[in-house]
């Protein structure tokens, strides 16, 4: 038992509550928003040390013994994810100080942001499949409001698509949970892992696995279920786009990794179709996403399609089902959250300077703001997988994993998609940064400094922090790779997880 395990959920809840209580004062809201995020990061660090030193940590909520109560479980994967979500929470809270207008603040932007983070952390920590559903709902309701907050026509259009497809996915998820409960009579994930291999109707197990694949696939935006994502993620303010694009889809990936290593393994389904299907899904997601990105000319739309494409890599790593593959997938998730969010944040700065997200109307950023250009290059090259940035190690470990189990075709596809990624990043670079200053530019372009009057530095600080993290992970990748390897090994040997939750078998 580790009582601290509830903190990554409780701290955002407390922060949101305080934010609601003091919602009249915009100044207090901001302070509470940022300090809450700092406290969350602190709790994540403390918990991380516990998990690193003593292995998997468990908390039985309300002191009800597993499998009857709700269990919170933290293994290395959970802690890596909670850690990155805490970092992102802080980054976005700072960025929002400038990016979010008074109107949205008044409608409770900061409490909602923290409720969203609570939902994300809850999904990572829970050891109960129905509780996972509940956290998904918490996350979705908060994200619905964040997406629609502000009421512009464009936003509502995107939000509607997002709401409907995600409600559908929740419904599918609930069907899957019902089937699992019908087959095994339990909802605790560790208990499920024990009982699923004993179920005689293996066909039904495979069917349920497919249902989960569809449900989480929609959330993670994999091929062919990704259409809602590029249609909605470019509509809200940049801070919201960034946390959605960086973090939310990865919760779907996390859920896929969790259920396909703990519940639906080769042993419980008695066949290997599932991972073959995942492999195809991953391949198509990579290719279709990157082609979609190549065909668009709006900054955030390109980035949205890239989210889809990058999800493919993670699914591919999971489908390899080897320690190396899963390690690559986890590393990829972490690297991608950093690189992708940073690109979104930079698009926000560019929009502030040029007044548009349309690449054709942009230009001259390199001439007037070379420092911003350098930060963009770091993130874009990391996304494309250039050494020595974080993306290189992510791609390298996936490629290595693919070659070691002789999956040459998909590995080739992955490398090719990397090249195409570079192509669309170059497109942004050539138009927004290198091309001449556009005629119809806002008056302040070129005159307003990044640091100093105008307070643009509030936007630049988060961007610089993430860029620093990307370089750090790139130059000093070994510790993080080792942590990801620990996480992957824990995932591939569920007996440790089961024993931690249910006690010695």
């Amino acid at each position, binding site marked *: 038992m580790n009582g601290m395990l*509830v903190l990554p959920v409780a701290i955002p*809840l407390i922060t949101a509550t305080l934010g609601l*209580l003091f919602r009249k004062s915009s100044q207090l809201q901001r302070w509470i928003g940022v300090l809450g995020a700092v406290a969350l990061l602190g709790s994540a660090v403390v918990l991380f040390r516990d998990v690193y030193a003593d292995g998997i940590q468990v908390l039985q909520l*309300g*002191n009800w013994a597993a499998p009857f109560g709700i269990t919170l479980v933290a293994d290395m994967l959970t802690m890596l994810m909670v850690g990155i979500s805490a970092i992102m929470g802080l980054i976005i809270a700072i960025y929002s100080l400038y990016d979010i207008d008074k109107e949205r603040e008044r409608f409770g932007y900061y409490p909602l942001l923290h409720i969203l983070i609570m939902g994300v952390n809850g999904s990572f920590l829970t050891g109960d499949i129905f509780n996972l559903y509940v956290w998904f709902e918490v996350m979705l309701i908060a994200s619905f409001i964040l997406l629609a907050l502000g009421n512009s026509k464009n936003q509502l259009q995107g939000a509607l698509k997002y709401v409907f497809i995600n409600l559908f996915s929740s419904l599918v998820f609930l069907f899957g949970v019902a089937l699992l409960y019908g087959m095994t009579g339990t909802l605790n994930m560790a208990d499920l892992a024990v009982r699923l291999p004993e179920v005689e109707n293996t066909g039904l197990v495979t069917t349920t696995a497919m249902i989960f694949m569809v449900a989480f696939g929609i959330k993670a935006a994999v091929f062919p279920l990704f259409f809602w994502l590029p249609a909605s993620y470019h509509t809200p303010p940049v801070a919201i786009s960034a946390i959605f694009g960086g973090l939310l889809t990865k919760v779907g990936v996390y859920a896929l990794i969790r259920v396909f290593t703990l519940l639906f393994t080769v042993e419980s389904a008695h066949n290997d179709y599932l991972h073959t299907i995942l492999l195809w899904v991953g391949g198509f997601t990579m290719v279709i996403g990157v082609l979609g990105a190549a065909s668009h000319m709006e900054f955030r739309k390109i980035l949205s399609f890239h989210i889809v494409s990058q999800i493919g890599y993670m699914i591919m790593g999971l489908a390899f089902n080897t320690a190396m593959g899963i390690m690559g997938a986890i590393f990829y998730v972490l690297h991608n959250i950093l690189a992708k969010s940073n690109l979104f944040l930079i698009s926000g700065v560019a929009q502030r300077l040029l007044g548009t997200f349309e690449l054709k109307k942009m230009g001259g950023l390199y001439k007037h703001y070379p420092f911003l250009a350098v930060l963009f290059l770091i993130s874009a090259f990391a996304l494309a997988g250039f050494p020595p940035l974080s993306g290189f190690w992510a791609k390298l470990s996936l490629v290595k994993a693919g070659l070691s189990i002789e999956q040459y075709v998909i590995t080739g596809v992955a490398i090719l998609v990397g090249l195409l990624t570079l192509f669309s990043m170059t497109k942004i670079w050539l138009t927004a940064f290198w091309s001449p200053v556009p005629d119809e530019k806002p008056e302040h372009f070129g005159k307003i400094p990044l640091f100093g009057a105008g307070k643009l530095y509030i936007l630049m600080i988060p961007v610089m922090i993430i860029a620093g993290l990307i370089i750090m992970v790139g130059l000093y990748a070994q510790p993080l790779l080792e942590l990801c390897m620990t996480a992957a090994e824990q995932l591939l040997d569920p007996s440790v997880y089961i024993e931690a939750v249910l006690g010695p078998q």
Partner: protein
Amino acid sequence: MKSLILHTATRLMIGVLVLFSLFLFFRGHDEPGGGFIGGLVGAGAFTLYAIAFGTEATRQVLRIHPITLIAYGLLSLVVSGLIPMFIAEPFLTGKWLFIEWGAFDTKLSTPLLFDIGVYLCVVGFIVTVIFSLEEEG
């Protein structure tokens, strides 16, 4: 809405509804009832009032802004969860305090505090929704 019947009936009903909601609330835990259902009935009372006398009058009767009500509800939920953590027990563990007065024995507990939170959240949420709908239309 200007209707003499509705106005008179509302004045009579509202006290009954609020009392009934409190009855349902305290009946909870061991028997059907509790914070959620009690909160729904309580919100029903204010909804009726809002239909009969308008939202402005209801805001005055309610005195406290519905969103603040939600905030206090959440606060109560969080506190009830955190109390057991101070004696090194897991979040949300039920802690009971029995007070014997002789005639009425009182049971105070963290689940009660949790339920109060649920009650406030439900009332606050539904009243917020009703107010927004009424004021827009």
